[in-house]
């Protein structure tokens, strides 16, 4: 049995269920109480679980991330929101230098089972500092489990697993997908972290895409006379390269489309993993597509220009044949 919910509802349900399931889980962040988050992602949680479990914080990402780290080490499972993924940098020392490294430098003796989540991605005219896709930054810092969500099904199942996982997890919903709808099981479920999903099977080309780009890739392939296999990596660190490689061994062609900036983004690395380790499975060089090396501009025609479009993806796929 399934039912249809929106993507932000899925996010909220994941937190709701984990708050109900485990007393050690708490939620905090800016405006997570009555306001319910900028996209409705924490709506209703405060009313249900009360102010001890769901807490507005003062306006400081350093405070939020640093407190999450301490609380996690102290035996709690904090779920902490940053209002925009860009603010990973606003709590830069915590996010790059402290949280992912403290378990390692302790020789594994310290555990930091926290989850930070933050809406990422472009498309709503939010400008250069509220529109970035930061999984390239985070995935380049060993220690973070970096998880994205593409559908309500993903959002709920992956977020619940993120909260239960004993590693620091950075969970990245995409703000443009907030109101998209999808099926989720009636019953409780979780989805495995660290495993890519083959979302559509096909024989001709493997397209790796997540979040908004997954939907654009699907749109792009709808009209193509090419049998496309679409892989949603879900977790960007660690990366499940094996599922991608297996697919390319079948299709012989690879397109990687992602919303991170292309230079030292996710695309080149993913493509290179296949080239380097599965070279002879390739019938053509891979094609990578991302945000060209510019910040995200405000004006819609500019923003749409830099955000990979279905057309650009379609052209990328076709260029391999």
């Amino acid at each position: 049995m399934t039912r249809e919910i929106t993507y932000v509802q899925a996010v909220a349900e994941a937190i709701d269920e984990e708050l109900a399931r485990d007393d050690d889980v708490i939620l905090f962040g800016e405006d997570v109480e009555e306001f319910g988050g900028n996209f409705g992602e924490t709506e209703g949680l405060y009313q249900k679980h009360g102010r001890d479990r769901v807490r507005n914080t003062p306006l400081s990402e350093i405070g939020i991330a640093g407190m999450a780290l301490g609380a996690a080490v102290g035996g709690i499972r904090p779920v902490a929101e940053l209002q925009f993924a860009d603010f990973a940098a606003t709590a830069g020392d915590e996010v790059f230098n402290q949280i992912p490294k403290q378990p390692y430098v302790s020789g594994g003796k310290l555990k930091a089972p926290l989850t930070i989540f933050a809406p990422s991605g472009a498309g709503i005219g939010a400008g250069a500092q509220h529109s970035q896709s930061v999984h390239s930054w985070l995935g380049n810092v060993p220690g973070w489990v970096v998880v994205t969500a593409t559908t309500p099904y993903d959002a709920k199942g992956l977020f619940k697993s993120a909260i239960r996982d004993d590693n620091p997890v950075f969970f990245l919903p995409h703000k443009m997908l907030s109101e998209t709808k999808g099926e989720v099981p009636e019953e409780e479920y979780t989805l495995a972290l660290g495993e890519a999903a083959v979302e559509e099977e096909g024989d001709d080309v493997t397209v790796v895409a997540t979040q908004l780009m997954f939907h654009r890739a699907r749109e792009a392939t709808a009209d193509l006379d090419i049998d496309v296999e679409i892989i949603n990596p879900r977790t960007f660190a660690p990366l499940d390269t094996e599922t991608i490689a297996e697919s390319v061994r079948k299709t012989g062609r690879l397109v990687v489309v992602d919303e991170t900036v292309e230079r030292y983004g996710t695309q080149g690395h993913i493509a290179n993993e296949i080239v380097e380790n599965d070279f002879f499975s390739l019938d053509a060089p891979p094609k990578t597509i991302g945000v060209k090396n510019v910040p995200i501009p405000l004006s819609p025609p500019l923003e749409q220009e830099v955000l990979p479009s279905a057309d650009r993806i379609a052209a990328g796929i076709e260029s391999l044949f």
Partner: protein
Amino acid sequence: MTQNVSVDDETARQFLEGMLRIDIFEEETKERFGEGEIPGFVHLSGGHEGSHIGMGAAMGDDDWLAVGGARLIGQYIAKGVPLPDIMAELYGRVGGSNKGHGGQMHVSDIGRKLYGHAATIGSGQNPAVGLALAEEIQETDNVAVTTIGDGGTSRGSFHTALVFAAYWDLPVVFVIENNEWAISTPAESLSPDHLSDYGIPHKMATESIDGSDVEAVYHTVSEAIERARNGGGPTVIESRVARLVPHFEGDKETYRDTDEYERLKEEKDPIENYRERLLERDIVTETGIEDMIANIETEVKEAVEFARESPEPEPEAAYDHVYRTPLYGQGENQ
């Protein structure tokens, strides 16, 4: 309770006019946003007009304003950025102050010494310290004024800016627009009696004033600027205002108490209060105000027309302004 008018009549009228300009411009902005003409987020300044205009009037043309908080449009206007430049930027058009690259949160006008927001709350204060340092090094007597909201004062970046400004006794005036809310989080929950108290450990001059009173703001910021100009170092001012509008357009404000909200609208509207004050003292007449409004409405209408007629940027313009090229030495034969 009648209040004195402490500035000359002409200045008083300018204050009223300035506040009305913000209000009318923003009402129009709200409409245009509602009609889908303006992309992105829109945050309005209702309740902050007195703070913006008082501050702007206290500043010299060559003093920097590093804007902060989320009530930005009023500050752009107070610093003298032409309305068409602002409106076209809200529209994301090539005629905008930032050619559409920035939008509502980022209007900047270096010629008018408006340093634009980086849209992360609390991001203007350290740059303001740098701007003040640059002026000092260039041996001017210009100062840097920088604004931040009550919410923003919780960020460490604000406190570090205080440390740096105090360290070299730089000419920086920190204005905290305390409107009691950071989106939905009440400033009341913060510990300090006044947010300007954050200046105390640094031994800075601090003031907490009724920021809905344009004249109070004008005088207090003027004094602080004067002090900074004369080598007296930084000041922290808390300008207490009411946020008489949603955080951004679309915010349902379920977190606010309706009665209290109504009371604030009654009592803390800087424009309404000042209007009455000037009328009572015959500094303006009703018709005088109507004329002002009519003129401003024309200005605003022209700004909207300018914005509408200004072309959308060409998509390729997205690739401009990432770097100033060529890079140093690039392409030369070494």
